Each structure stands twice: as C-alpha cells, then as structure tokens.
C-alpha cells in the first residue's frame, strides 16, 4: 500500500521535540509545528494547562498568539505534537475522542523506552463513530 501522507522534519527540530518532551517528563508536553509545503521549519512549544502526566490541553490564548505569529512569518501550523510519557507512539482513545482539527499532522513522541521515538498521523473524523486514521511518513532531513 502506498502511503501518500508525509511530513518533512529537520533533524534539529526532531531533537528539539525530544528535548522538550524529556524536560517536562513525566508531565505530558505539547506544541505546534510551523512550516509550509509539507516541511516543518519551526517548533512552537506550548503550555500544557492540564499539567498532567496523562492529559494535555492547549491554552486557547497561547494558541491564538501562536497562530498569529506563524501567519506573520508566512507559515501555517502543519503539525501538532504531544508526548506519551509511558505509552507507545500511537493515538490513544482520548486523542481520538478529543480530536477536532482536521488540518495538522498529529505527532506523538513516546518516552516509553530509553530512547524517545515518534510517529505521525493524519485523522479524518466525520463523527464519533466514523474516524479514519492514516500513518504519516515522517521524513527526517539533515540541517
């Protein structure tokens, strides 16, 4: 099967995600990825207002500020990431339940194992019972 979804992430930004996730662990970390044409160029760390090891929520005021900042730089928010401190890099039931924004690639950074890893997903949700999930090919690019 051909995977048509892909996202290019520079190695330095991948490392920033891992560092951010580890720095907040065991609290779940989160953030936006800005870029264009399917290539990430900037990482925006966000506050997890839940401050929880099991949940995350963005602060809407911070979201609006980040959206405007990206727009002013000619970028779109093409990815959203959060960490799973103790579970694999896959979408949880809660991730799918609270999923709303159909545009960005959803990236999970797992800290379950000694070495962090990540996976990306594109989600299409018609309603609570009709959800399509596609794996996204995360292409690491050297800086």
């Amino acid at each position: 099967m051909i995977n048509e979804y892909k996202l290019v992430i520079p190695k330095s930004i991948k490392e920033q995600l891992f560092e951010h996730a580890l720095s907040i662990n065991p609290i779940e970390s989160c953030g936006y990825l800005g870029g264009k044409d399917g290539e990430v160029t900037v990482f925006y760390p966000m506050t997890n207002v839940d401050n929880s090891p099991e949940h995350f929520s963005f602060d809407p005021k911070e979201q609006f500020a980040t959206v405007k900042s990206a727009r002013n730089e000619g970028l779109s928010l093409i990815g959203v990431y959060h960490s799973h401190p103790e579970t694999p890099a896959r979408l949880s039931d809660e991730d799918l339940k609270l999923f709303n924004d159909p545009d960005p690639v959803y990236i999970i950074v797992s800290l379950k194992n000694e070495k962090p890893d990540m996976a990306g997903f594109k989600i299409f949700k018609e309603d609570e019972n009709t959800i399509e999930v596609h794996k996204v090919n995360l292409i690491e690019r050297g800086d």
Partner: protein
Amino acid sequence: MKLTINGEAAEFEEASFSVSELLKRKDVKMPDMVSVEYNGDMLDRENFDSTMVKDGDQLEFLYFMGGGQ
C-alpha cells in the same frame, strides 16, 4: 459586510449575523470545540449565539487541542 476571518478577507451579503451562524457557514463541524477571538478579545462560548458580527469585524477561531496517553 466585510469581515476578516483568521487573517483573510471574507464578504457576506447580510449586514450582520451571529458568531454561531458564522461558524456554521465556515463549515465548523464541532462548534462546541472551537475558541473564538472577536476583535481581539476571547469570546465566551455562551455568547456565540448572541454576539452579532458586523462590517469591519475581525474574528479568529481555532479548535480546542487536547488529548492524553
């Protein structure tokens, strides 16, 4: 009326309608999960029906973002 929605110009035949109507027209499927900024201020969800947008208004809306392992 002419509005600016998420930084982009938009034009409607009507002189005014509610924020809820605007979200409907922008094909927002889950309005309960959307945050709205109206002319620079966050708008309480309970006021989506009663707040009427008009010519020159600036609106931003985005989806609640959350989840968990």
